[in-house]
C-alpha cells in the first residue's frame, strides 16, 4: 500500500511547497489601504488618489465657548437625516470593533518588544480597531464617518493579530460585549443590522487616506513619530488611518409610528459652530487688508463645546451658523459676545473632528 501513497504524498508536498502565497493568507497585512476611490474630502489638501503621499491635512483653528483654543477637521455631512437606527432598531451606520476600551485588559506584544518606528508599520503593543467601511465612492457611496461601537476584549491575544472582521468574528479567544458572539455574514453590505453586540455608543471616526501628512492645529507633527493626531486600524486586512472625533451624543425618538407602534430611534445630537461673515486678512504681498468674506474654517470659528465637554453639549457633528461681527477686523472670540440677531442658520451640518493640540 505504501508504494501507492508515498509517491502521491511526496508529490503533493513538493507541489504545495511551491506556492509562495500561503504566507499571504490568514490575517496577514495586505499593506495600507489604496485611496484611489476615496471621496475627495478624505484625501486631504492637495490629495491625488493616484499619487498618495502628497496631501496634507491640518485642522482649522477655532475657539470654544470656554475660551479653549482648538482645531478641527471638517468632513461633509451627506446624510439625509440624523438617525442612527431605523424604527425597528436596526443600525443605519457601520460598526467598528474596538479593543480593550476599558483599559483593564490588553493584547500581548511580542516578547521583549520595543516599538521601532523604522521597522514597524504600527505598534505591536496595541491592537488597532477594525473598521468595515471606507470612504470609497464605489464600494460605500453613502459613507459617513460614524461607527457603532462594538467593544471587544482581546484576552491577551497577540497584538495586531486581527486585521479584518472576517477573521475576528471567527475567533473564539476574544470576548464581545455582553458575551455575545457575532452572527453576521462578514462584510455584508451596509451596517450589519443584526447580531452585532454593540454597546449603544456611537463615535465619529472618519477613515482618511493613510498616506496623508496629518498635522496638529499649529502645523506641527509629533517630534518623535513625525506623525499627526491620526490613529491606525484595519479594514479587510488593509492598514487604515482614522481620526477620533469623540463620542456622538444620542437622543432617542420614542414617538409611536403611524401604526401606533412604539419606536426607539437613535438620533444624533449636534452642536452649533459659528463663523464670521467677515474677518481680517492678508493679501498676496503679505500686507494686512481690512476684511474679507468669511467662511467656515477660515480660522475665526467659534464652537460651542470642546471635545469631551459633554456638559456644554459637545458633539462632533456641528450645525453651521454665520454671524456678523461687530468689528470685522477683530471678530468676536466668544459665542456669548455674538449678536444673536445676526446669526443665520446655514442649513447644513458638518463633521467637526476636534483635536486638542
Amino acid at each position: 500500500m505504501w508504494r501507492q501513497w508515498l509517491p502521491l504524498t511526496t508529490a503533493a508536498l513538493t507541489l504545495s511547497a511551491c506556492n509562495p502565497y500561503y504566507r499571504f493568507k490568514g490575517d496577514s497585512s495586505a499593506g495600507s489601504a489604496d485611496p484611489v476611490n476615496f471621496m475627495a474630502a478624505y484625501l486631504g489638501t492637495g490629495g491625488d488618489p493616484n499619487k498618495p503621499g502628497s496631501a496634507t491635512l491640518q485642522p482649522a483653528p477655532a475657539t470654544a465657548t470656554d475660551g479653549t483654543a482648538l482645531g478641527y477637521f471638517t468632513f461633509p455631512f451627506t446624510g439625509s437625516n440624523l438617525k442612527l437606527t431605523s424604527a425597528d432598531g436596526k443600525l443605519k451606520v457601520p460598526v467598528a470593533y474596538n479593543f480593550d476600551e476599558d483599559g483593564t485588559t490588553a493584547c500581548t506584544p511580542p516578547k521583549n518588544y520595543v516599538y521601532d518606528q523604522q521597522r514597524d508599520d504600527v505598534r505591536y503593543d496595541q491592537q488597532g480597531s477594525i473598521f468595515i467601511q471606507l470612504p470609497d465612492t464605489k464600494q460605500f457611496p453613502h459613507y459617513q464617518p460614524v461607527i457603532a461601537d462594538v467593544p471587544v476584549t482581546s484576552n491577551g491575544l497577540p497584538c495586531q493579530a486581527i486585521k479584518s472582521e472576517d477573521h475576528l468574528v471567527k475567533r473564539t479567544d476574544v470576548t464581545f460585549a455582553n458575551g455575545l458572539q457575532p452572527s453576521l455574514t462578514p462584510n455584508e453590505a451596509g451596517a450589519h443590522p443584526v447580531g452585532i453586540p454593540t454597546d449603544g455608543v456611537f463615535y465619529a471616526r472618519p477613515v482618511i487616506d493613510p498616506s496623508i501628512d496629518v498635522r496638529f492645529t499649529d502645523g506641527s507633527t509629533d517630534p518623535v513619530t513625525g506623525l499627526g493626531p491620526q490613529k491606525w486600524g484595519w479594514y479587510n486586512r488593509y492598514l487604515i488611518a482614522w481620526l477620533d472625533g469623540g463620542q456622538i451624543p444620542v437622543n432617542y425618538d420614542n414617538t409611536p409610528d403611524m401604526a401606533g407602534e412604539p419606536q426607539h430611534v437613535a438620533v444624533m445630537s449636534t452642536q452649533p459652530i459659528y463663523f464670521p461673515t467677515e474677518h481680517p486678512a492678508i493679501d498676496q504681498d503679505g500686507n494686512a487688508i481690512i476684511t474679507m468674506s468669511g467662511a467656515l474654517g477660515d480660522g475665526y470659528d467659534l464652537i460651542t463645546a470642546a471635545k469631551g465637554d459633554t456638559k456644554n453639549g459637545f458633539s462632533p457633528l456641528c450645525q453651521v451658523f454665520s454671524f456678523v461681527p461687530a468689528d470685522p477686523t477683530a471678530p468676536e472670540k466668544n459665542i456669548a459676545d455674538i449678536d444673536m440677531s445676526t446669526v443665520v442658520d446655514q442649513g447644513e451640518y458638518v463633521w467637526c473632528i476636534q483635536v486638542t493640540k
Partner: protein
Amino acid sequence: MNRLNRYGRRLTLAAALLGTATSAIPRAAFAAVETNGRLRGNVVEAQTQAPVPGAQIRVSGPALIGNARTTATADDGTFEIFELPPGKYVVEISYAGVKPIRKNIIIRQGEAYPLDVQWSAELAEQAETVVEESRRMTRPDDSSTGTVITQDEMSRVATSRSYQGVIQQVASVTDVSGNGNPEIKGASYVQTRYVIDGLDITDPVTGTFSANINFDSVASVQVLTGAMDAEYNSLGGVINVITAAGSDEFHAQARLFINNAKFSAGNQYGSSLYHGAHIADSTPKPVNQGYQAVLGVSGPIVKHRLWFNLNFQYSYNQASQTAAPPLNVSLVPDTRNTFLARLKLTWAPSDKHRVTLSLSGDPEFIRNANQNPGGLPNTEFAQNQGGALVTLLYNYFVSEKQQFDISTGFQFNRIYAGAQGILGTVGHVANPFSAAANNYDPNSAAHNNQDDDSTWYQGSRVQDDRRFTFQFDPSYSIRGRAAGAHDIKIGLQNRLVKWTNNSYTPGGSVYNDAGGGPGEGGLCQIGADGNPTSGNGCNQQIVSRPSTQSGLGYAFGAFIRDRWTVMKRLILEPGIRVDYGITKNTLGQTVSNLFGVGPRIGVIIDLTGDQKTIFKANYGRSNEVMSLLPASYASPTGLTNNNFYNPTTGKFDSSNNYTSGGNGAYRLDPNGNTPHVDSVTLTLNREIFKNSLVQVDYTYKHFANQWDSIEKNQIWDPSGSRVAGYKNGVQEQVFQFSRPGSNWRDYQGIDFTLESRPNDHWDIYAAYTVSWLYGPASEEFGQLSGDNFQSQYYNPRVKQFYDGFTPNDVRHIIKLRTSYNYKGFDIGAFLQWRTGTNAVHKYWNSNDGYYSTRRSPSGTDPGTTPNSVANISAFRLPSVMTVDVRLGYSLKELLKQDLRIYFDLFNVFNLGAVTAIRDTDNPNGFGLATSRQTPFKMQIGLSYDY
C-alpha cells in the same frame, strides 16, 4: 539579429538617485572548468562476459596534438584515458595476435565517453571493424546536469550565431531578460559563469558574459546546469566554451550571412497586450537587418607540434521597435558594429607537455540602444564596449596516472556608455515636438514625464567603466586504486579583479515631472534662474554630480574532488572546496571579507550494469565570496540632491528634500553571512535505444543570504507612501550593503529531456521543464528591474510584497531541436515555448517621485477593486513561442568544393507575443506592451570550407 548586451542593465533612475556608476556587478569567484573530456570503458569477452585484461587501447584524432594516447585494460577489463581535447577520435582496441577493433567516437569537454567492448573472435576476424559511435551519453561517472553542444549540432539549426544564443537550446536555460545572459535553475542571470578555454570571463562588474567570441571559432559549448563537483563554484550554471584549435591539415573558411531589412516582417503591432500585427499598416516598417562576414584559417606551423587557428568576424546589425505610445513616433534603429578577432596556438613540445594560448578581441559600437517608445533620438543610449583576453593552458602529463595543469589568463574590458549625444550623432525622426526636443544640447537636463513615462531632452548618465581580471588556477590530478579506482583532482583558484568608473550626468540634473499631463506639454518648465517658470508638471529635481569610483577584489579557492569507482555499478563523487574573497572600495575600505565551505557529494548507480541506465543523486553548496557590486555601491559617490517642488515658493525647496550618495551615505557589513546556494539533484537516465537517451532530473535549490542594500535612515509613515522622519536627523538615504538571512529564494524544477542521434541523418534534442521560483530575494541591487529600490529592504512597509514568484519565474518551458540531412540537403528546426514571466504592478511613491511601491505580492496584481484581497490575482505576461528553421544545401557534389548555402528563417510564424509591458500604475499607459518578440526574418548564408 544578435542583440546581446553584456552591460547587464543600463543606468537607471534609481542608480542615478544613488549616484552610483555602474550597473550590477558580480560574483567573481571561480568557475574553473574541465576543458577536456575522457574515455572510459571496459572490454569483456562476448560469450562469457569475462573481463579482458591487457588489451591495448590507442586513441588518436585530429584534435589531439602530438602522438596518440595509449593505455591498457586493467585486470577487471576497465580502462580510462583522460584529458582528451574535444573532437572526433578513433579508438583502436587490440590484443596480441589478433586484428584490432576500431571505433569512431566523439569526445566532449567535461564528459566521459562510455565505451563498452564485447570482444569476440568473429568481430576480431574482420579485416577492419569500424563502428560509428556518436552516442548520446548517460555520463556514467558524473552527476552533473546539462549537456554539450558541438559545432556540428550548432550548424544544423538556425541560431543567432553566438554561444549565448546556442545555449538557449538547453533545458532549464532561459533568457527572460532577453539580453543574452540566461537564467539557469533559479539563479539570476548575474550568477551564471562564463568560461572560455579555461578563463573565467564573467564580467567582474556586471556579472554577465564579458566577451563575444567568433561563432565559427567555437568548437563546442558545455552547459552545466547543476550538481557540479567541487571543482566548480557557481550559484547558477556554467557555460564552458572550447574554441577550435588547428590541426595537422590546413583549413580555411569563409562565411557570409545576409539579412536585409526586406527579408524581415517588421514588428508593426498594436500597443495593447491583445493587439496583433497591423495587417494594413502602410507606414514604413521598422528596420531589422544584419550582415556578417567571417574569414578563418587554421593549420600546422610545425606538424604534430605547433598549430594555429586564426579567425575574424565582422557584424553589422540593426533592430528597431515600431512607433508606439506614448509618443507614437518612429525610432532610430539600434545599430551595432562588432569586430571579433581570435587566434589560438596549440603547442606540444613533447608528449608530456601541451600548451594552449588564445588571444581574443571584441570591440563593439552600439548606437540608439534604448529603443524607448517614450523618447526621441536625443534621449537615446550608446555604448562602446570591448576588450581583449589572453588565456594560457598548460598540461603536464607526468605519467599515465598523474597530471599537472595550469589555467591562467588576463582580461581587460572597457565600457564607455551613456547619452547618445555624447558618444555619437543624434538621429532624427519625424515628430510634432519642439526644436528643443529634436536638437541635442549637452547641457540640457533630462525630463521624465511620469504621467506617461516619456523621456525628454537628454540621455542617461555617461560612464567610463574599466575592468581588469587576472586568473591563475593550478591543479594536480592523480589516479590510482585503493578500495576501488580513484580519479582525484586537487586545485587552487585565484582571481584578482579591478574596476574603475568615472561618470557624470549630462546637464547635471534630471527632472521627474508629474501632474502636468502627458507629453512634452506636461513637462516642468525651468527658467534661466534654474527655478520653475509656472510650476505646471513640476515634481522632483535630481541634481547629480560627477563620480569617480574604483573597486578591488581578490578571491581564492581550493578544492579536492574524487571520482571514486567503488565498484562497477557504484561511483561516488565526494569533494569539498573552501573559498575566500575580499573586496575593497574606492577608499580602500573592506566591503566584504567572506569565507565559505562547499561540501559536495554525488552518488552514481549503474542500475543495469551496462552504463545505460544510471541513477544519480547530488548535494552541494556553492559560496559567493567575492562580489564587486557592493563595493561599487558602498563607496563614496557624487552627492545627489533629491529636491521636490514646493508650490508655495515655486521652487524645488520642499521640506521633504533629501540627499543620497555622497561620502556618508553607505554603511559596511563586511563579515559573515556568505551568500550561498544549497542544491539537491536527483537524476535518472536511460539509453532507450541506439544513441538515444531519456532523462528526468529534479532539482531543489535554496539561495540564501543574497546581497542587498538595506536602507537604514528613512522612517516611513505607516502607509509607506512618504518619509515621516530620518533616524539620524539628516534628510538623507543611508544604505547598508549586506547579506541578510531573510534574503532568500527557492527553486524547484523538473527537467524531462530526450537526446537522440539514431543515425547520421537525424539529430534530436527535446526538453520539457516545469519549475517554481519564489522568495523575496528576487534580485540583487535591482539587477533585473533596473531599479534598486525594488527590494524588500528599501521600504519596510511594503516588505511583504516582495515575497512571491520572482520576476524570472517561468513555469513551463518546451524546447525541441531537430535536424535531418540527406545527400547534401539539411533541414533543422528549433522550437521554444515558454509561459510568460511574472510581472509587478508598481504604484506611485511620493517620496521617490515615481512609481516604486507595490500593493500586492510579487507576481500578482491587486485587481481593479482596491482594498480587496480577494481580487488579488496572478499577473503574468503571455506565453512566448518561437520556431526557427534552417534549410541548407551543400554544393560539394556539384562543385567538388565544400560550398554551402543556407536559408535561416527566424520566428517562422511571425508571432509577436508581448515580452514586456509598462508596469507602472500610470493612467496613460499601464499594461501597454513595451517589447515584443523579434518578428519573422530570413537570413541567407554562404559558407565555404577548404
